[in-house]
Structure formats: structure tokens, C-alpha cells
């Protein structure tokens, strides 16, 4: 595949790992922010290719992992109402709520549909005027333009039976939350390439400056990841803390203004609760008031109490890089991918699932 195979070239991978080994002199902890990057590191077995000085910490950029429990409960409740079709991205449907997951709700008769795009959900709403179609609009800045577009589109078409259950989260406030926690010891960041493809890179300059930390915007293929790691280590070894763009074939300095314009039309910034981390000010987007009719949070009165999180799950500390998944007493015991206690064990991008699949490997 063009534009993929070039970045999976074993020869280049070998050269980058050699260069990383040559450059590194001290231990460094680097956080890859995005779950897609975690997935790329694990899927290609890159972690074992890194020298022992380099520790990769899996960050909070996994939408499945940080979506609050009570929102999943809300989605399950909505899906279980007669006349509602609840549409969602794939891996969200296995995340356990406090009572059940969307997948289990589906088995009990709820109308739960897996889609690749929220625009498909608008089409379903048009074709089924007797149904309330709700799209579970989670994710970071990457999924926001399509979710925003679906609402603008539905409004334009006069589709009244479409709404989104939204819990959008933003990367820069999450990086700040990680850095301002006195327990974290992250030396550098691989920022999420696809988020920056939308948002551009300017948001990261003040963070790099404030926390004196290098931030390298990085892609997802093996060569991207290793190059991003190398660029971060070079800065660290030189005592620098700049914003660099490894993923320049996709990320323009100004991002995608058209996509941001759509986001701006539909969303306002809001405080957002992150599962396992807590509330982070200004860390999310919600639908603007003029789109209240499309906001499932406002359209439906969901009579649910906020359920408590599992008392043993240390997801918050894992997501901030304070603890490794295997430091959790239930890791691989009570908590496994087929019976997850916390969200990072659910998605293949989640830090705990990534470790579960990988750490048992005898080196």
C-alpha cells in the first residue's frame, strides 16, 4: 500500500533503532499520547527494539478508556429504550458500564448499531422517521469534525429524530493534567498526529515552554514512531524542549482550518470528566446551545444516578503514567480483556490491554 509500506520498511526501522541506541545516554520516559500510537508500538513489536534506557508510557489518548462510566450507562439506558437506535463506533460497545455494556444491551434486544461514520447515523434517522437515532459521539479532536458535521447536516436537512450523546475530549489539557501532577515523571511527549492534522501545532508551544518538555508530533507507522522517539531523545539529550513535527506529510502547521470551522460552528469548550482522572477544566467540547435539539444529554431525561468506579482499578494512575498496568493487584487476575474491570483493559489501544497482550512475552 502506497504511503504505508514506505513507513513499514524493515531496513529503515533497523537504522532508526540503531540511531536511537547510539544517541541515548540516560534513562528517559516518553509518553505516546494517542492510543493509536500505543497500538502501533505493540502491534509491530517495537517496544522490544528500543534500548533499555527508553521507557514508553502509554498516555490518556484512548477515547474508549477515558469516557466516563456514567456516560456509558446513559448510552446503555438510551439504547434499551423502545424506539431508540443507538449508533456507535466499534470498540465502544464492549466497554462495561456499571451494569452492562452496549454489547450486552444489544443481546437483550436493544437496537445498537456499529458505524464507521456519524453521517451514516443521520441517514438511518432519515430512513427511520419513527425512530430516535442517537450517535454516541466520543473521541478526541479527530472524530469531532465528523460528529459536528452530522449535526449541521441533520439541522440543514430538517432531521428531527437525530441527536448525539457527546463526550468530546481534548489533548492539550490532558497533557497539562499529566504534567501538573507532581507524581508524574514524563520527560517528553509524542503528540497525536491525527489530532494535530485537525488542530495544527500552535497549541503545543506554550505547553512545551511552561513544562520545559519536548513535544514531537508523531505519526502511527513503525518508522514514524521510531523517528518521533529519536527526535524526542535528541532534544532531551541536548537539554532542549521544542515542538517538532515528525508527521509533516499529514500535519500542516495550521492544521485543517475547514474542519476547525465546522467544529467551531457546532461545539463550545467545556469542563470534562475523564474516566480515572477526574474533571479537567476546559478539556472537552459540548454542543452549542443553538443545537440543543440535537444534544441527547438535553433531549432525553435520563434518570440515572452516577455509579461509582471500581474501587480496585488504578486506571487514573496508569493513564497519567504514574503506575504501570502490571503494578495493579488485579492485572491479569480479575481484570483481563474478556472481563475488564476498567476501561484501559477494553480497547486494544488501552494501556492495560496493550500490556496484557505483550508483557507475558518472555524476552
Amino acid at each position, binding site marked *: *500500500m502506497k504511503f504505508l509500506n514506505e513507513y513499514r520498511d524493515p531496513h529503515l526501522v533497523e537504522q532508526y533503532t540503531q540511531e536511537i541506541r547510539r544517541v541515548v545516554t540516560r534513562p528517559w520516559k516518553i509518553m505516546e499520547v494517542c492510543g493509536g500510537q500505543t497500538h502501533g508500538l505493540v*502491534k509491530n*513489536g*517495537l517496544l522490544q527494539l528500543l534500548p533499555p534506557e527508553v521507557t514508553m508510557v502509554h498516555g490518556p489518548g484512548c477515547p*474508549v478508556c477515558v469516557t466516563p462510566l456514567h456516560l456509558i450507562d446513559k448510552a446503555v439506558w438510551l439504547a434499551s429504550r423502545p424506539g431508540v437506535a443507538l449508533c456507535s463506533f466499534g470498540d465502544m460497545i464492549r466497554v462495561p458500564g456499571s451494569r452492562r455494556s452496549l454489547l450486552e444491551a444489544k443481546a437483550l434486544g436493544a437496537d445498537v448499531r456499529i458505524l464507521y461514520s456519524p453521517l451514516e447515523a443521520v441517514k438511518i434517522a432519515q430512513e427511520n422517521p419513527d425512530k430516535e437515532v442517537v450517535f454516541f459521539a466520543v*473521541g478526541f479532536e479527530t472524530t469531532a469534525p465528523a460528529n459536528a458535521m452530522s449535526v449541521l447536516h441533520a439541522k440543514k436537512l430538517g432531521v428531527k429524530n437525530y441527536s448525539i450523546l457527546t463526550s468530546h475530549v481534548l489533548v492539550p489539557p490532558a497533557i497539562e493534567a499529566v504534567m501538573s501532577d507532581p507524581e508524574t515523571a514524563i520527560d517528553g511527549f509524542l503528540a497525536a498526529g491525527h489530532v494535530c492534522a485537525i488542530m495544527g501545532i500552535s497549541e503545543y508551544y506554550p505547553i512545551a515552554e511552561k513544562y520545559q518538555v519536548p513535544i514531537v508530533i508523531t505519526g502511527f507507522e513503525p518508522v514514524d514512531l521510531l523517528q518521533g522517539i529519536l527526535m524526542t531523545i535528541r532534544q532531551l539529550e541536548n537539554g532542549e524542549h521544542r515542538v517538532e513535527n515528525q508527521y509533516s506529510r499529514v500535519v500542516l502547521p495550521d492544521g485543517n482550518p475547514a474542519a476547525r470551522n465546522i467544529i467551531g460552528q457546532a461545539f463550545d469548550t467545556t469542563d470534562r470528566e475523564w474516566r480515572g482522572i477526574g474533571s479537567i477544566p476546559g478539556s472537552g467540547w459540548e454542543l452549542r446551545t443553538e443545537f440543543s435539539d440535537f444534544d441527547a444529554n438535553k433531549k432525553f431525561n435520563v434518570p440515572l444516578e452516577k455509579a461509582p468506579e471500581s474501587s480496585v482499578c488504578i486506571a487514573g494512575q496508569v493513564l497519567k503514567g504514574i503506575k504501570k498496568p502490571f503494578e495493579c493487584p488485579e492485572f491479569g487476575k480479575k481484570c483481563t480483556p474478556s472481563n475488564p474491570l476498567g476501561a484501559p483493559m477494553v*480497547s486494544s489501544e488501552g494501556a492495560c490491554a496493550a500490556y496484557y497482550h505483550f508483557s507475558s*512475552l518472555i524476552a
Partner: protein
Amino acid sequence: MITLGHGSGGLLTNKLLESGVFDLLKNPLLDTHHDGAVFEMPGRLAFSTDSYVVSPIFFPGGNIGELAVNGTVNDLAMCGAAARYLSLAFILEEGLTMREFWDVLVSIKFAAEHAGVQIVTGDTKVVERGKGDKIFINTTGIGQVHPRANIAMGNIQPGDKIICSGYIATHGIVILSVREGLEFGTTLLSDTTNLNHTVLHLLDDFGPDITLLRDATRGGVATVLNEIARDTRLGVEIHQKALKVYEEVDGACEMLGLDPLYVANEGVFLAVVRPDAAEAFLQKLRTLEHGADAEIIGEVVDAHPKQVVLHSRVGGRRVVNMLAGEQLPRIC
């Protein structure tokens, strides 16, 4: 159009059977129109059953009918057996058109002929609209085990080579592409086929050197490999660069967020073969039907018991686990 009456056992059922099913699938055992087939079979026998619920029922490269014949024929082949007789049971949903039903039946006839198997008994039930998904099929088959076959998990030893018979993940991606409305630059077809002739030729030549045969259907190659590791308590190592995936399939997996290792196949099998016979086995397989693209993809090892480890194309290693449930596309 199929109505509830076609499953009532009365006139409509009789008409449906007489007007074609018996005629189409004609053979001496079926022609007796008895409650069951009566026959003698000598030697070691293999017996297998499977149900088919694929949606859509027609897909590029095949339909649920030939899938149902090939699937059970292949399950028997994986036991080292030549399928002789099949049962065929339909659960039809009201509203299925006669045209669709006949198309499925005709492809059942041809698949059975190609596999050299006879359909000797069967059943038809009809359920109300909404209680089924057009057509469900169950086939059960019986066949004679090849005299040289000695296929059992317990025979597998460290050092045995794992051979994959062809390109993987094609069937699953074809089905998904129809469901998701994906289109490819070329025509991608399901790999559904009968593997019995190929397997029997291999057993002629390699007999006891073949320790295991498995078709990599639901759950894909990764699931079979995990079953080998789990049941033998040995490790399995595979090499990503030896796994063949059509570029269109690879691209679709990339777009849909799926791992081809877990995607279903209908005409691909894995063979575990003694190391000294592996190369000759591979060369022979490459000369046989559906084996031209075979490769040695890995081996059974003493290290990391019960685990499948993949050597990635870029030189890394990772564990390939059993899937927790259905493979779900990732958000981003």
C-alpha cells in the same frame, strides 16, 4: 415465494421437494424418500456438523449454499477424511423468494458434485418473517478417514512446521465489504472452496508426517494458532512476512481497523508437519488445487508455552492472543 406452508409437511412441502430438491440432488440414497438414509461404511469414520448463518446470503464469489457444503466437507478433510455423505437442513424465513432458494440449491448441487459428496437426507422448516435471516443451513457429514492419516493435537512436537495454504482474510473482508458498501479496484471474491481433494493427495504422500490440519474459518489464522498453543501447551512462532494477504484485503483491514490474522477464511487451511517433511510437503501442496500460494509461516517451539508470538515484518515481536469476542473496529 416461501411461505409458512412450505414447512408444514403438507402439500406445499411436498411440492417444493418434488418440484426440484429431490430431482436436483438426485442419488440412490436420496431417491428412496425415506426418513433417513441407510448405508454401510467400512473403516475409521469421521463425523462433523456445522450451521451456516452468513449475511448477506449471496456474496462475491459464492453463496450460503456452497459455503454449507464446503464447510462440512472441509471439516471432515481436516480430520483426514474423505466426505461421503451429507445431510442438509434448511431453516427458511418466510418471504425468501423461490429464485433465491433455487440459486442456493443449485450451488449446493455443484459444490457437492465438485467435492464428490452425496446429499442423502435433509429437512426444511420455515419460520415467520423476522424470526430468521432469509436462510439458515445446517449440514452434517460423514466420511472415511484416510488409512495413512494420524491427525491429533497430541502428535504435535516442538520443531514441527506450520504451513498456511494460501492468501488469508479474503472471505471475511468480502463479506464485510458487501455489508459496508466498500468497493475495490479489482473484483475480490470469497475463497470458499472444498479442500478435500488437496488434503487427500497430501495424506497419500505424507500420511503420519502431518500432525494437524485445521481450516482457518471463523476467528482466522490467529485463533487456530492459539488453539494449537493452548492444547499442546507448547509455543507457536509465526513470521509476519510469510503471511500472504491480498493488497485490497490488507487495505480494507487497514481502513476498517481489523487485523487480517483474525479475519475469517473459507478455503485456507493450516497444516502442522514434521520438520524433515515440511519442505517436500510445501512443494507438493504448491502443485495442488488451492495450494499454489502456500508458505511455511512458522513453527512449534518449546519456548513461551501456550503462547503465539509473531515476528513482525519490521523485526519486533508481539504476542498474538485469542480474541476476547468479536473483532471490533477501533475508534481512531
